[in-house]
Structure formats: structure tokens, C-alpha cells
């Protein structure tokens, strides 16, 4: 099992969520975050004083998938979140040791 973490532009959340739903992914966790990669921020003025807006609002999506579904999931996310402009985000894949469904006690791929 893998934990797929995707950082995407906030207005792309609905598209990514629909794309995941289309390939059968049933649960996701979403957090509002701020960050930057190579996308530079820019400076603004507040009452004459300069400040840098380099942390840009993004959305972090986490989804647990079975190994067999990883490639499909990555493709769905990347296609849905892509705008072609700088700041589109990244997808991280990390190994998932164990998953437990709290209500029923199921573990492993049954819990995904």
C-alpha cells in the first residue's frame, strides 16, 4: 500500500477529487497549506513598507491506495491538476505500513 500526497492549486481541488472518484478512489484527506517550490513569490507594499508574498496557498490531498492502483492514481491526479503554468504542484509517493478502519477493525488493503 502507498500513501500518495499531492500538493495542488486550490481551484483544482474539485477537478482532482472528481478524477479520483472516477477511478474508484473512495477516501481522501484535504488540508489547506501554504508553500512554494520553484515558483517565486513577489513583493507587495503595505503602507509603504515592502514585504514578500512567497508562501502561496495550496491544497494538500492525501490518499491511501493499494500498490496496484498507484500508477492510475498518479495519472489521474497529475492530469486533473495540471494547468501548464508554474506552481501546479507535486505528487509524493511514500510506503504505507499499515491501514486500519476504526469502525470495523479491518486492516490492510481491506481498509482502503
Amino acid at each position, binding site marked *: 500500500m502507498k500513501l500518495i500526497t499531492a500538493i495542488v492549486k486550490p*481551484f483544482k481541488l474539485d477537478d482532482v477529487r472528481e478524477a479520483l472518484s472516477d477511478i474508484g478512489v473512495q477516501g481522501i484527506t484535504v488540508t489547506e497549506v501554504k508553500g512554494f517550490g520553484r515558483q517565486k513569490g513577489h513583493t507587495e*507594499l503595505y503602507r509603504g513598507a515592502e*514585504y*514578500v508574498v*512567497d508562501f502561496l496557498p495550496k491544497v494538500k490531498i492525501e490518499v491511501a491506495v493499494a500498490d496496484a492502483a498507484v500508477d492510475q492514481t498518479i495519472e489521474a491526479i497529475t492530469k486533473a491538476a495540471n494547468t501548464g*503554468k508554474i506552481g501546479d504542484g507535486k505528487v509524493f509517493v511514500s510506503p504505507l505500513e499499515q491501514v486500519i478502519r476504526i469502525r470495523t477493525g479491518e486492516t490492510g488493503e481491506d481498509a482502503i
Partner: protein
Amino acid sequence: MENNIFELQYAMDTFYFLVCGALVMWMAAGFAMLESGLVRAKNTTEILLKNVALYAIACTMYLIVGYHLMYDGGIFLSEVTTVAQMDDVAIAAVLEASREAGFGDMGEYAGASDFFFQVVFVATAMSIVSGAVAERMKLWAFLAFAIVMTGFIYPVEGGWTWGGKPVPFIGELSYSDYAGSGIVHLAGAAAALAGVLLLGARKGKYRADGGVNAIPGANLPLATLGTFILWMGWFGFNGGSTLKLGGIAVANEVANVFLNTNAAAAGGLIAALIVARLLFGKADLTMALNGALAGLVAITAEPADPTPLLATIIGAIGGVIVVFSIVTLDKIKIDDPVGAISVHGVVGLWGIFAVLLSDSDATFMGQLVGAAVIFVWVFVASLIAWGILKMIMGLRVTEEEEYEGVDLAECGMEAYPEFIGASGSGK
């Protein structure tokens, strides 16, 4: 001795204009809070700026030329008596005029107080537009339109109605509108509608399959505060439109105006809340707030004559209308983030005809022609103004700017900043 009473009456009626004018000015704060509460966080600074700036522009343009177009007050208020001009000779002239008129008529009052009371109405009409075009209009295009609306479009239709000037090809109107359901509210909504039609909806509001996406406001406490502020300010809006306080009959009229204004707002809120609960299954706060405002707009054309019960019902009908209007406008893809066109336009029209329920001097044709003149003039003139602005500078921010939020694009500062420390890098 009689002179002392005339002096007192002058002072009282002047004071009344000033206090009511100050209450209506307070409505500008109400609009600012209501609108900033109903837009997204990333667009809050810009709408606040639109509200403060349009108020200042309205005051200035109406001072320069608007008041003259509407009431012949002179360019730059040259006909308004200054402090220096109110010398002993002028005072004697005022007393003479008071003696001739007796106590039955309008009486004398300071011209400056009349301007002050009128100018805040202009600002109210203009601020109706800012909510409807929120979150995607270029700030400076909006401010440019504000100059035209407050300096020309509103004063012309105000002159035809309250100013008593004849309308070309139609002549003098026999249109009854106590505080401006049509002259202020329908007019503002007409300008807003023209703008929204040329502007288009917010990105992501309407789906291709015809569905409507909700775009929730960022700060409902502010929206509620704004509504209460507007409610309170409306006592000046309707109350001041009695135009006089010094006298038994007229003071009684003022008291009834306050009473009915309050009753209509209450009726509107309750009705809208019930309708929203029945339609949507939950108690929609934003609909309740719009309902109170709808009640206020509905009674504005005639707040003096109705009984308190009738005033409540007139407001309640406004509350029912506004809920359906908001839903309908979304169905025909007219995107109005705060419901301004529904509250002020659709219900404004209801208010114009509600006059017939209690004012036996008003006529259906008189109200219809008045409403039509106001709407057609403001809508067409606004369409032209917006159209020219669209050609010269464009009305809409870029797609990128709309996604990032107009706060950063137009104002360079966020309303709810986080991650901005002294050194500017997120501490």
C-alpha cells in the same frame, strides 16, 4: 417672540436633516460590512476599498455637479448658503420667508443640510452596484463608472422625480416615492444589472450542465453586523425623507415612519427565513439577512401611510420575493454575489407598487411610468457607460487574477493575512 419660534423651527428642521444624513452615511458602513462578509477572503480588501472609495467619489461628484443637475444647487454648490453668507440680512430674509409661509408649509432650513441629506442617498444608490459586480470586476473600471453614475445618471433621474423636472417627451411625472424604492434602490439595481450583464459570472459559479455552485462568504459575523447597521441607518433614510420635524402632524408622521420601517424589516426577515427553511430545509442566515433588507426596501416608497400591520405585511412580501428572486437569477445565470439586484431591484419594484396599498393619491399609471422611466434611463445610460469602459480598459480582471484573488491583484494586500512576518518571509 414669533421670530424665536421660527429660529427654533429652522434649527430643528436643519438638525433633523443633519442627524438623518449622518444615519444614512452610516449605511455606507453597513454595505461595506455586508459585502465584505459575503465575498471570499481573497477578495475582501478590494470590496472594502470599493465601498470607501465610491462613498468619497459620490460625495465629491454630487458636490461638483450632481446636486446642480438634480436640484439646481449650483456647480460646486454655488447656490448653497455658506457660513459667511448667512449674515444678518440673510437671517432677516429667512425670517420674512418663514412669516409668509406660516407653520403649515415646508418651512426654512439650511441649504447645506439639504445637500448633506441628499448626497448620502447618492452614495447609497452607488453602493448597491459594488456588491453585484464583486470578485471579478476591475477596481478602476468600477470607480470610473461611479464617477458617471453619481455625477450624472442618478442626478438626472433624481431631478425627474424628486426634483420635479419634466421628463423629455413625457412631461412631469406623477410618481410617488417617499424615500426612494425606485429612485435609489431600483436605480442602483438597474446600474448593477447593466454591469453584471457585460461582466459575466464568476469563474466556477455556473456548471456546463446548468447547475449552480455555491461560493460561500468568508465572514458571516460581518455580514450580520452590516445588516443591522443598514437597518439602523434606514431610520435616517426613511425618517429623514419626511424632510421636516418641527410640527405636531409632521413629528407624528416621522414617528410612524420609524415604526413602519422597523416593522417592515422584521416582517421581511421572518418571511425570508420561513421561505428559506421550507425551500432549503435549513435556516439560511444569508437569506434572513437579505429578507430584512428586502423588507426595508419594500417599505421605502411609502413608510408613512401604512398601518403597522400593513407595513409588516409589505415587508414580509418583500422577504418572500427576494428569496425566489435570488434563486431565479442564478437559474438564468446572472451572478450576484450578495443578492443586490434582487433586494434592491426586484423588491424595489414591489415597493413602488406597494405605495398603492396605502396612498390614495398615488395612481397605478403614475407608479408604472415612474418605475419605467427610472429603470430605462438608468439601465440604458449605465449600459453605455459600462460598454465604453469595457472598450477602453476592459471590465474584468484576468483569469489568473480572479483565481488568486483581487485583493493581491488590485490592492496588494490581503484582508486576512497569515504567514507575513516582520521580515516578510513567513514568521
